[in-house]
């Protein structure tokens, strides 16, 4: 009888503590975050015109061996968070990171004006006027940043603006992990 009694107390207590831990962990997560099904898969094909020239740009831009990894940054002049992360993008570009821009559902004039004002961190800019390429990449808001290696595989997707903290906590580990396991390339 005594053992049954202590089981009656201990088991619900354990279940409660377990549930509490489970829910507490849940509280730290963002329920609005939609995970990308593209991690580990090839970056989808696209064929768009560039912002500053008439020539076209395709996903081949990721495949050049000059860099092991590149960033694809989805941005627009109408997106306030994009303006906020722009300074940090400039820092990344200056430190040698190759950033390809996907100008998403924007207007050329306004996009150019934004870059005139805040600087141009992009080595190339693809113009996705209608957002069709965005849909192909599973974009559901701006800004979003993909880490893509030179085999064209998407390693990571960050939804939301980049800043030093996010870079250090989320993107840098992915990049370092990739670089260290691909020393020879």
């Amino acid at each position, binding site marked *: 009888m005594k053992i049954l009694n202590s089981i009656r107390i201990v088991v619900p207590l354990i279940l409660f503590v377990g549930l509490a831990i489970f829910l507490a962990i849940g509280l730290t997560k963002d329920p*609005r975050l*939609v*995970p*990308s*099904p*593209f991690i580990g898969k090839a970056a989808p094909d696209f064929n768009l015109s560039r912002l500053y020239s008439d020539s076209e740009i395709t996903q081949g831009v990721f495949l050049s061996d000059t860099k092991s990894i590149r960033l694809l940054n989805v941005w627009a002049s109408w997106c306030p968070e994009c303006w906020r992360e722009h300074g940090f993008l400039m820092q990344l570009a200056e430190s040698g990171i190759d950033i390809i821009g996907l100008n998403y*559902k924007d207007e050329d004039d306004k996009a150019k004006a934004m870059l005139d004002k805040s600087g141009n961190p992009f080595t190339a800019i693809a113009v996705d006027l*209608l*957002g*069709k390429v*965005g*849909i*192909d*990449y*599973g974009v*559901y*808001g701006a800004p979003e940043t993909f880490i893509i290696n030179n085999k064209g595989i998407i390693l990571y997707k960050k939804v939301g603006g980049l800043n030093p903290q996010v870079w250090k906590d989320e993107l840098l580990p992915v990049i370092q992990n990739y670089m260290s396991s691909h020393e020879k390339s």
Partner: protein
Amino acid sequence: MRNPKIYLFLVLFCTSFWTCSIAEEVLSFSNKDYKTRYYALLEELRCLVCQNQNLADSGAGLAEDLKKEVFTMVESGKSDAEIKSFLTLRYGDFILYKPPFTLRTLFLWLGPFILLLGAFSFLIFHIKQRQKNHNKNPALNNDEKDTLARLLAKEEDA
């Protein structure tokens, strides 16, 4: 209302949801079946911007784009399965209001039933235990007899 700023707040608050409000557009379909399927699909697909709305109700930019995609695909003869596959390939299972029944979502689908079963079994077990205990010792033991006597005596005095 004393503070006029409250009116401003209310107006701004109400209009801030404009992107998630209903937007109607007149579409022409080549046949009735396409039209039925189109609207049925819109109800089953989630708007990823206003995540508690389906595409049918959402006026968000992305919702409009996705509605156009669905329309184009329906009109070009694609099946419901093909359209859903197109979207889940890009946005994951979250875009479907009905999560697919797979090993991963087993708990999601069966969880409530499992919990109900567990609670029900425990209840039956508990009732059976009490019945068993009651049948074992129906009479009062000596201590309980004394307590009863004392209480009854108090009752008579009061």
